[in-house]
C-alpha cells in the first residue's frame, strides 16, 4: 500500500489487519504491531491462527465467512466477544478487565475482477467505554448498603429466568429470606447496628452462593435468592447452609457482639407458574417458617 491511504492506515487509532482467503496475514498496521508486540515483518505471510490460535473459534469463523462467502460485513461486538485479539490493557490496571475490550468488524475486499480476495479486520479499543458502562450498570442494579442486587433488578431478571428455564425445561428455584427479630436490633442497638447486620448477613449469603446464583435485597430485612438450574432439594440444602452460616455469624456493633438468625422459604418453578406465583409460594414457605418458630427452612412444593 502506498501514498496517503498507507500513511493514514499507519496513523489511525484503530487496528487494521488484512488476511487472504487462507487467513494468512497480508497487512498488519502499526497499531496492531504496537499492541501485539509483533512486528508487521514478522507476522506478514503467516497464518493468523499461528500467532492467535484462540481466534480459531466458530464465532470468529462465522463472521469471517460471512465476509468471504456472502461479501457482507460482520461485527464482533464487545458485549458478545470481549475481544478478538488478546492485548494487554493500556495504562494502569482498571480492576475490571485484564485484557483490552474490543469492538471488531470484518469486511470483504474485492479484486479488480469483483472476486473477494481478502478480508479486512478492524479492531477498536473500547475498554474505557466498557468500564464506564459496567460501572453505570452496577450502580443501577445494586443495593448500595449491602452490595446485593436491588429489587428493580429482580423485577427484570426473574421473569427472564422463568421464561428461559421453562423454554429449556430446566429447574429453577428461589429462596425468600428474612432476618428474625430485625426490628428489635434496630430498636435496641440503633440503625447503625441495624445497617451493619444487614450488610454482614448479605455478605455472608453472597459468599455462600454460587457464581450463577443471584442474591437480591427484596426490601427492608428481606432477601431473595434466584437459583438457576437448581431443583428444590438442592435449593433446600443451600438454604440450610445459609441458615447455619448466619447463625454462626458474630457481628461487631460498637462494643457489643450481635447474633441474628434467618427464616427461609423455598419454592421451585412449576410449568403453570409465573414469576409472581413462584415468589408467592416461596413467601408462603417463609411465612410458615416464621410461624413455626423461626430460624428454619420450609419448602413449598
Amino acid at each position, binding site marked *: 500500500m502506498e501514498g496517503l491511504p498507507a500513511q493514514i492506515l499507519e496513523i489511525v487509532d484503530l487496528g487494521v489487519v488484512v488476511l487472504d482467503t487462507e487467513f494468512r496475514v497480508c497487512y498488519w498496521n502499526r497499531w496492531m504491531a504496537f499492541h501485539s508486540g509483533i512486528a508487521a515483518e514478522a507476522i506478514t505471510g503467516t497464518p493468523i491462527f499461528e500467532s492467535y490460535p484462540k481466534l480459531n473459534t466458530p464465532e470468529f469463523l462465522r463472521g469471517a465467512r*460471512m465476509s468471504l462467502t456472502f461479501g457482507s460485513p460482520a*461485527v464482533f461486538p464487545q*458485549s458478545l466477544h470481549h475481544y478478538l485479539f488478546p492485548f494487554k490493557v493500556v495504562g494502569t490496571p482498571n480492576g475490571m478487565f485484564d485484557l483490552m475490550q474490543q469492538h471488531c468488524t470484518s469486511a470483504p475486499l474485492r479484486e479488480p475482477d469483483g472476486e473477494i480476495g481478502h478480508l479486512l479486520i478492524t479492531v477498536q479499543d473500547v475498554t474505557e467505554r466498557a468500564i464506564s458502562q459496567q460501572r453505570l450498570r452496577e450502580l443501577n442494579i445494586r443495593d448500595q448498603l449491602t452490595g446485593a442486587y436491588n429489587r428493580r433488578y429482580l423485577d427484570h431478571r426473574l421473569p427472564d429466568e422463568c421464561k428461559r428455564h421453562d423454554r429449556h425445561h430446566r429447574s429453577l428455584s428461589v429462596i425468600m429470606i428474612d432476618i428474625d427479630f430485625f426490628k428489635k436490633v434496630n430498636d435496641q442497638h440503633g440503625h447503625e447496628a441495624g445497617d451493619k447486620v444487614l450488610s454482614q448477613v448479605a455478605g455472608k449469603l453472597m459468599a455462600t452462593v454460587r457464581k450463577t446464583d443471584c442474591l437480591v435485597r427484596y426490601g427492608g430485612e428481606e432477601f431473595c435468592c434466584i437459583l438457576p438450574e437448581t431443583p428444590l432439594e438442592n435449593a433446600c440444602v443451600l438454604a440450610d447452609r445459609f441458615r447455619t452460616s448466619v447463625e454462626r455469624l458474630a457481628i461487631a456493633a460498637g462494643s457489643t457482639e450481635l447474633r441474628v438468625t434467618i427464616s427461609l422459604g423455598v419454592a421451585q418453578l412449576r410449568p403453570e407458574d409465573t414469576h409472581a406465583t413462584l415468589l408467592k409460594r416461596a413467601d408462603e414457605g417463609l411465612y410458615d417458617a416464621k410461624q413455626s418458630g423461626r430460624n428454619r427452612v420450609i419448602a413449598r412444593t
Partner: protein
Amino acid sequence: MSEAIISEIKLANAAELDLFLSEESQQRIMSADERDTLQEMMNIAFGRAAASLAEVISIFVSLSVPCVQLLKGEKLTVYLEQMVGPGPEISIVEERFYGKMEGSAFLVFPADAGGQLVPLFGDEETLYEGEAREEVERDALLTTGGILIGACVGKLAELLGDQVSYSPAKLVAKTQGKAIPAALCNPDAVAIVLKTDFSFREESVQGFLFLVTSQESIGWLKEALAGFLSQYEG
C-alpha cells in the same frame, strides 16, 4: 406473528388504505412478467442464502416463498404498520445496501427475539455474567440480523450481477415510522417491497424480512431481469 395473521391484516386493509398502486400504474413501472421474474429470482437467491448459511456457518433458517409488491412511497410507513399489526412488540433491524440496486433491508423480529438468539454466540451463562443483558441481547439481534440480511441481499445481488456494500446494521426501535429512511418516503417515489418470512430452526425465532428499493434502481433492475430471462430464451 404467523404468516396467516400478517396476510389477513394485509388483505383486509390494503384496498381501504389505498396501499398499492393500481394494476395499470404497476404495469407502467414493471410488467407482470417482470414482477414474476423478480419473485422467482428472489426465491432462488433466498434458497441459496439458506443453503449457504447452513453449510458455511451452521445457521439453519427457513425462508418462505417471497412476494413482490409495488407501493406508493408515502404509504410505506402505513404498510409497515399493517404488516406488524397491533399485536406483540417488535424489534426492527435495518441495514442499507449500496450497489446498482440500492435500498434498505428491514428485519422484523418479535421484541424478545434477542434473548432467544443469544445461544448462537456461545454459552448463555458466560455471556450474561457481566450483567450486560440488554447489550448482549441487542447485539445478538443485530449480529444475527446482519447475517441474515447479508446472506439474502448478497445472493440476490449476485444473481442479478450486482455487487453491493452495506452500512452497519441498526436497531430501529418499536416506532415503525422511524424505520424508514426519509429518502424512501418521498411521496412521489415508488417502492418495490420484496417480503419473505423466516424462521430460525434451532431457536424457534420467526419474523419477516423485506427489502425496499427506490425508483432509481428500477431501470437497472429491469435490465438485469431481462438479462436473466435471456439466458433461457432462444
